């Protein structure tokens, strides 16, 4: 899952980036409304962790931008203003969830998984495709009875594919999920990960559509 954290406090922003990366996600950080809008224009994100009080405006501006563009992004608001009317306003403005500061990283991660499930219209905690089962919380995968030992990036690719059964994901889309914008991407990084995945899952599960991308069989 690729996440954009919009938070102006440098220490909290750093904490979100480091902390959420530890859950296996790719996290980018924006400190202002403008940076956040620019990032949303250029990249696709699965979830947005949004602080309301930003130096150049209100986080709700970012939320409205996402909602008017009908981006399929789960938005979790993060704010110090967490009285009931504030929560109601935020949820009515289109937020998927709400978390008051200070918060627990595990709770934030759990809520992100939950809003992500909701965006994808899924009620179960685990992801299934045939014999393949993924637990995004524990970041574990099974094929039948067999435990799969996957690296963070391998799991991310598999998760992206299993979340959208039947859809074809391009190499660029997978790269988006795998790397933050400051990270260097090797020219054939995605191919390498797919290669490793095939070695672990068997050759038939991930199909390559030449020139288009990858999908699950």
């Amino acid at each position, binding site marked *: 899952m690729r996440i954009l954290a919009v938070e*102006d*406090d*440098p*220490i*909290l922003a*750093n*904490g*979100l980036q*480091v*902390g959420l990366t*530890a859950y296996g996600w790719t996290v980018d950080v924006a*400190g*202002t409304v403008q940076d956040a809008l620019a990032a949303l224009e250029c990249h696709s994100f699965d979830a947005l962790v949004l*602080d309301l*009080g930003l*130096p*150049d405006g209100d986080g709700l501006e970012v939320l409205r931008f996402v909602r008017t563009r009908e981006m399929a992004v789960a938005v979790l608001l*993060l704010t*110090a*203003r967490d009285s009931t009317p504030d929560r109601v306003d935020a949820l009515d403005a289109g937020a998927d969830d709400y978390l*008051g*500061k*200070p*918060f*627990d*990283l*595990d709770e934030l991660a759990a809520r992100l998984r939950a809003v992500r499930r909701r965006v994808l219209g899924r009620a179960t905690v685990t992801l299934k495709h045939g014999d393949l089962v993924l637990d995004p919380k524990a970041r574990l995968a099974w094929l039948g009875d067999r435990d799969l030992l996957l690296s963070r990036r391998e799991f991310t690719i598999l998760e992206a594919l299993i979340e959208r059964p039947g859809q074809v994901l391009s190499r660029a889309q997978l790269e988006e999920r795998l790397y933050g914008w400051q990270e260097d991407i090797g020219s054939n990084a995605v191919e390498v990960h797919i290669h490793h995945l095939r070695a672990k899952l068997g050759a038939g599960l991930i199909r390559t559509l030449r020139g288009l991308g990858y999908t699950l069989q």
Partner: protein
Amino acid sequence: MSSIRLRLFVILALVSTVVWSVAAGWVYVRTQHEVERVLDARLIEASRMVSSLLSSGEVARIPSTGPLNSTTRRESYDRQLSCQIWSLDGALIGRSDGAPGRRLTTHASGFSETTIEGERWRVYAVENREAGVRVLVGDNLGMRDHLVQSVITGLIAPAGLGLLAMAGLIWMSVGRGLAPIRAVTRVIAAREANDLSPVMTPEAATELKPFTDALNGLIGRLGAARKRESQFISAAAHELRTPLAGLRVQAQIAASATDKTVRDAALAQMTASVDRTARLVRQLLEMSRSEALLSTVEDRRWIALNDVWPELLHRAGDHAGIEIHEPGPVSLHAGPYPLSVILGNLLSNAAAYAAARVDVRVETGEPFARLIVEDDGPGVAPDDLANLGHRFFRAANARPGGHGLGLSIAEACARAQGWRMDYARSGLGGLRVNLSLPAADVRAEV
């Protein structure tokens, strides 16, 4: 005398006593005068009556026989008058029962007063040449005084009782009259501490209105102060939550990190966060103190800027680019605390944004002297300049980690000193803060 009731009672009781005493004195004098007039008239009448009886010859002249017994003093008024008839050659011809044996007066005619055997007499003498006698009729003055005194005592006794009754009535009436005060007292005493609505009295006495108005004014100011305070507390609580969130997240990262570099980085972030939170807390305290300064006047004295610069420069992180230009040694008339807060915040702020250079200039002038702090940093967008002194306001390009408090604190302290702060774009490229202060608050040191 602290009790209004007692005070009013004493005043009213004293005034009534004085009025009654004056009335009694007046009655005494009038009564005495009237009694004298009436009794004198009676003396004249009696003596003439006796004289006329003698002239008509209907009364035989009886020579006196032997010494007469001195009369026993009588208290009743029936023997008040004494009559003596003397022949013109000085022999006592006759006298009434109880009249003294000695001649009542040596005066030939008219009124006179004598003392005989310790008793004072008022005597009227009539000479009757036709009968060859002199008629003396005397009135015992002791009796007269007794009469007047009886009248007065008859007056004083009920007056005294009346005064006592009046004292009671005054005490009660004053109590009743003060009922509105008690009503207001009850209303105020029964109030909850958080009830800051105006005081309304059921029996709104016009005399109490200035008092309740003043009280309501105070309550109003109190309410405004409390509102400010609660806004401040909620703003402060709100501001503290972000650094706390950062701290908690970093602590969780440090606790769960298996990689030493990740843990060390998180711990370093925690240290930085604690420092910044401590700064925020200090600023919040300065903020609340500067709010309080507006209502209290701190001791102001002359402070030489040269004495305070070193400490302030140190607080601004000993920024190498700070240059101070003074026309000569200058002192400012200010409270030491607000002055250090104002200048400290201006310098720290400028130093934090400056690329390389901060200029501080003092310009004396009439009617306002100016202290200017400017930097060569990124500056503030024109739209944001107007909001710069607002609490928690942060310009669009504010550096991360600030809380939008420094300038607002400086401005609040400046206001408390009667100074003014405004913002402009600096010629150096960054922000220019002008602190205007009355010329009377600036003094060149010699």
